[in-house]
C-alpha cells in the first residue's frame, strides 16, 4: 500500500493527483476499480474518509475539499487507494496490497499550487517506511536557496501505521562542525513544515536535517515573495550515495554516518 500525503503550506494550495493504472505494464494488464480514501489520525485511531471510486485508467486530483469539511482542519491528510472497502475508523492503517506491487513504484503527483504556477514531484510514502515506528532521519541536501527574497521550507513527512501522536526533536546542523543552527519540534503522522532562518543559513556552510525517534521523507520547498515561482523536491536517503556491492556493507556505512551526524551531533 502506498500513501500520498497532502503537502499543505500556509498560503499555497495542496493537491494530490492519483492514477488508477500502473507505471509499468502493457495496456492489457488487468486493472480493477479502486476506492480512494483519506486517512487522518485522532491520536487513538485513524479516521477514514471515502473520496469515491477511481475507475481503471482514470486520474483525479484530490484535495482537502474531498473530505467535505468533516475532517479535523489541523491534522494532515494521507490519501491511499484500496480494492477493498474499509470502515470509517481503523486502529491501524491497512497493510500492503498486491495491486500496487509495481516497479517503478506506483506514484502519485504531489502538488503545491501557487500564483499561476504549480510545483510537484511524483512520489509516495511506502508502507515499508510507515512500519518504522522508531527510526532516524538524516537529510544531506544542498537545496536550501540562499538568495534574498526567497523563502525555503523543509517539509518532514512522517506516517506510521499506528495512529499514535508522538513529539520528537529535529535539528538543522552544519555538516563540518555539527553545530546546531535551529531546533524544531516535529510530530508523527503529520506533514511537518519547518521554517529555515535565512540569516543563520546565509553564513553557514553545508547543512543537514537530523531527527531521532522518527523517520520520514524530507521535501525542500522554496518560493518567492509573490508565490509565482516554486521549487519542490524530496531528498534521497543517505543510502543512495552508494550503489551495488554488499547490502550489509552499505547499511554499515549508513549506520556509521548516521551515528556521526545524529547521536554525536549538536553542541
Amino acid at each position, binding site marked *: 500500500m502506498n500513501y500520498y500525503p497532502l503537502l499543505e503550506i500556509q498560503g499555497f494550495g495542496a493537491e494530490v*493527483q492519483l*492514477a488508477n*493504472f500502473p*507505471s*509499468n*505494464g*502493457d495496456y*492489457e*494488464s488487468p486493472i480493477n476499480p479502486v476506492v480512494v480514501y483519506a486517512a487522518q489520525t485522532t491520536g487513538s485511531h485513524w479516521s477514514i474518509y471515502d473520496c469515491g471510486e477511481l475507475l481503471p485508467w482514470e*486520474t483525479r486530483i484530490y484535495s482537502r475539499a474531498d473530505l467535505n469539511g468533516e475532517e479535523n482542519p489541523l491534522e494532515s491528510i494521507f490519501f491511499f487507494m484500496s480494492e477493498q472497502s474499509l470502515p470509517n475508523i481503523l486502529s491501524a492503517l491497512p497493510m500492503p496490497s498486491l495491486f500496487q*506491487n*509495481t*516497479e*517503478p*513504484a506506483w*506514484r502519485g*503527483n504531489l502538488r503545491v499550487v501557487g500564483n*499561476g*504556477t*504549480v*510545483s*510537484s*514531484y*511524483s512520489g509516495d510514502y511506502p508502507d515499508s517506511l510507515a512500519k518504522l515506528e522508531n527510526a532516524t532521519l538524516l537529510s*544531506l*541536501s*544542498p*537545496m536550501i*536557496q540562499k*538568495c534574498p527574497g*526567497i523563502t525555503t521550507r523543509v517539509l518532514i513527512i512522517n506516517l506510521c501505521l499506528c495512529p499514535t501522536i508522538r513529539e520528537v526533536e529535529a535539528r538543522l546542523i552544519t*555538516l*563540518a562542525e555539527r553545530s546546531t543552527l535551529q531546533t524544531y519540534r516535529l510530530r508523527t503522522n503529520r506533514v511537518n513544515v519547518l521554517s529555515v532562518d535565512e540569516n543563520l543559513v546565509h553564513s553557514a*556552510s553545508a547543512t543537514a536535517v537530523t531527527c531521532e525517534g522518527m523517520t520520514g521523507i524530507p521535501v525542500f520547498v*522554496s518560493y*518567492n515573495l509573490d508565490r*509565482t*515561482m*516554486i*521549487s*519542490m*523536491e*524530496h*531528498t*534521497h536517503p*543517505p543510502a*543512495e*550515495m*552508494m*550503489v*551495488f*556491492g*554488499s547490502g550489509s*556493507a*552499505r547499511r*554499515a*556505512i549508513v549506520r*556509521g*554516518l548516521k551515528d556521526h*551526524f545524529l547521536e554525536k551531533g549538536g553542541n
Partner: protein
Amino acid sequence: MASLFRFSNRVLDMIQHRLRLRAKSSHRFYNKVAPGATVSDLFLWRLGDQWITEFPLCNLSSLCFPMAPQGEVVVVRFFNAAGDFLKEWETVLAPFEEQTLKIKEQLYGITSDVFGTFCVFHAPTLKNHFLASQTNISDRGYVSYRRNTDQVSSYTHGNTYVLSRNNDEPNQTCFVRYASWRKHTYNLQTTLDDAVQTEVFISNPTKNRQTVTITQFFPDFQTTDTAVTLGPLESCLFTVEKLTRRIALSSHVFMLRPLVFKTYVNGFDVFHG
C-alpha cells in the same frame, strides 16, 4: 509477432507480480560495475537564451565516511544532445565542501546546443573505504533549472544510474542493460493538460541505439505514436502536443523514465516521471 511479444510480456509481468519481485531486484538491469568505480546518473543541462542550469557539487566521500573526512576530486563530463563528448572539467572539494557547478560557464563557446547531458564522478582520496566495502560511490544529485528572469531555481534529482568510471581510466562506461526481446512500457502517472506547454526530456542510457515510442493520449481516446531513435547517450526534448492528457514511453530499456517540464502562466514545474 507483436501479439507474441505482448503475450510474453504479460506472462513475465504475472510471474513478477506473483513472486513480488520489485525494487531490490532492479540491479538485474545493470551490468557489473568494477569495485572502486564511481557511478553517476545522466543529468540534463539546458542553456540557450532562456535557461540556466546549475548543480551543487558535494563531497560525497566525506558524507559517507564523516569520521575520516577527506578531500575529493570531482570529474564532470559533458555531452551534447547527440551524445558526443564535449569536455571534461575537474575540481577538488575539501571535506564537506559544496561548490556550485555553473553549466553556462563550462560550456560557453563550446556548443550551440541548447540542451545536453552531464555526469559527475567522485574520486575519494581514501579509495580503500569504498573498495573494502565492495560498493560504489554514486552521484544522484540535484540539478537546478531556472529561466533568465526567474528568482527561484527549481530542483530535481537524478533518477537512473547510467554511467560508471574507473578513476584510472579516462572514459565512462554505460552499464544499463536492455533486452531486445522485451519491450517495457512506462506510463507517466500524472496528467499534462493543465500546463501551457509540456516538454519531455528522454535520453538513451545504453551503449546501443534505441528506439523509444512516445504515445500521447488525448481526451477523446485518440492516441498518437511518435518514434524517436537515439544513439548512445543521445537525448531528445519532445514538446507534447496541446490537449495531450498523458503519455507513455515504450522501449527495450527498463526504467526509461522522462524528465518533465511543465510551463504555467507564471512559473514552471520540473519533475521526474
